[in-house]
């Protein structure tokens, strides 16, 4: 599988990582190299095999559906790059 520049641009956008136009060819090359390496997986006969969801087959524990914490607004906001009036602040989203 070879990744072209358009695909590299699309993947970078999906990942929300800005990549300069001039860096896209190198990125496409690297991603293609890694995907080629992964293509060995096509040699394996996986007929009838279920994809693994959990490495240790355990039933997830349940607990009572009650609130166990809260009232920690200051702690939640303490590390925010921009917090105002008890909220996270971001650039304008809607015009």
């Amino acid at each position, binding site marked *: 599988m070879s990744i072209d520049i358009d695909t*590299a641009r699309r993947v970078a956008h999906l*990942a*929300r990582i*800005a990549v300069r136009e001039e860096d896209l060819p190198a*990125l496409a090359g690297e991603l293609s190299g890694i*995907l080629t390496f992964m293509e060995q997986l096509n040699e394996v006969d996986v007929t009838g095999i279920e*994809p693994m969801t959990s490495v*240790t087959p355990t039933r997830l*524990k349940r607990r009572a559906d009650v609130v166990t914490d809260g009232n920690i607004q200051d702690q939640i906001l303490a590390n925010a790059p921009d917090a105002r009036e008890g909220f996270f602040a971001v*650039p304008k989203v809607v015009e």
Partner: protein
Amino acid sequence: MTDLNRLTIAEARDALRKGETTAKDLTEACLTAIEGAGALNAFVHHTPDIARAQAAAADQRIAKGDAPAMCGIPLGIKDLFCTRGVPSQAASRILEGFRPEYESTVTTQLFGAGAVMLGKLSMDEFAMGSSNETACYGPVISPWRRKGDSAALTPGGSSGGSAAAVSADLCLGATGTDTGGSIRQPAAFTGIVGIKPTYGRVSRWGVIAFASSLDQAGPMTKTVRDAAIMLGAMCGHDPKDSTSADLPVPDFEAALTGDIRGKVIGIPREYRMEGMPAEIEALWTQGTEMLKDAGARIRDISLPHTKYALPAYYVVAPAEASSNLARYDGVRYGHRAKLAAGDGITEMYEKTRAEGFGKEVQRRIMIGTYVLSAGFYDAYYNRARKVRALIKRDFEAVFAEGVDAILTPATPSSAFGIGEMANADPVEMYLNDVFTVTVNLAGLPGIAVPTGLDAKGLPLGLQLIGRPWEEGALLNHAYVLERAAGFVSKPQKWW
């Protein structure tokens, strides 16, 4: 007592209980060693005030006779663990300035047992790397050097700061984490012991996530006994981690009987890789002989899907990473890019993540994004998860046939030089994990034990793989190997 920082955890524990030393003196000895080891770049956030306060509290507990094994033991903590009020940034620019408001379960348990935190240890960014060169703090330098050569070597990765610090006696033990070999490879490169427990044995709560189905924390120590002691303090059920196993924690140290007579050691033929250095091959044969001399039975075994472990890992791990690392968006914590006039929220995300993540992390996020994207999910991600199921089945088959532990090399080579892999293909760097990733994919416990030196005077390690939840038996096999190998070499101090 001199050189208190050179003690093992077991020696320090015994000396503390006998009143021959104090947590204060142990801690001061380590702090002095750390101050003199700036050249190694292992400790990147220093917490001497916390260390001194914890040491004083530990001394009080010991005086009262209330002293768990880890009480008063000075440790280094990998930067991946969230520690309250102390920078915890996974060696990434994107978490610059982040000071968690909470404490990880592992450090909570260690501190509850009286352990002392000296500071935070460098690592590969988000634990993605095998050489510590992707850390935002610059690379950690191994205390080891090749004979007659002053070239800077890597301590391995991702827990490279932990490995360098323990190996250079800057602390008595350190926490590490292992997603594809990140405890065992650096332990092997620096001549120390590192165990990755069974998936679910140690809580992942408060450990910055890389690939959640593979990540496990574990101890990195000077001896197998120390690993047993420290692992006991780190593990246990945690309701805050839904994958944490609700199983009793055995006394791992008590399992170190040194008796493995009649145990069956599997030697997997698929691990005999083409182009494997003769020294690694010889070391493996010697290790096999040592276990045989101790009364174990050696059996040739086959793990037929071994070859596909690396490609499966490099689909599954980046897929999970792309999802886990989506949270770094410049909104809730860490770095946010300076925006230009007119930039909206998408530009904020894209610029923040481009500035905050290093090249290797970006590459893995994008690979993960690709293999999870519409049209490729089945071809890559689901196929990798099916292959993962087959890899686990390989191990289950040999364990069902009576194999107690599996012996393999830990790494395909000894430590390489900083920058030596700079022009290598990313895939070449990934080959470092070739002997270790299978264990993560199958969720098994694995341990690296220092077994010898190569012709250049650098440490080499062997890996033992155990049955799930049987870390005690695994540690006992490692203990036998450790004693037979008699590895006592230390790096010559040059820093």
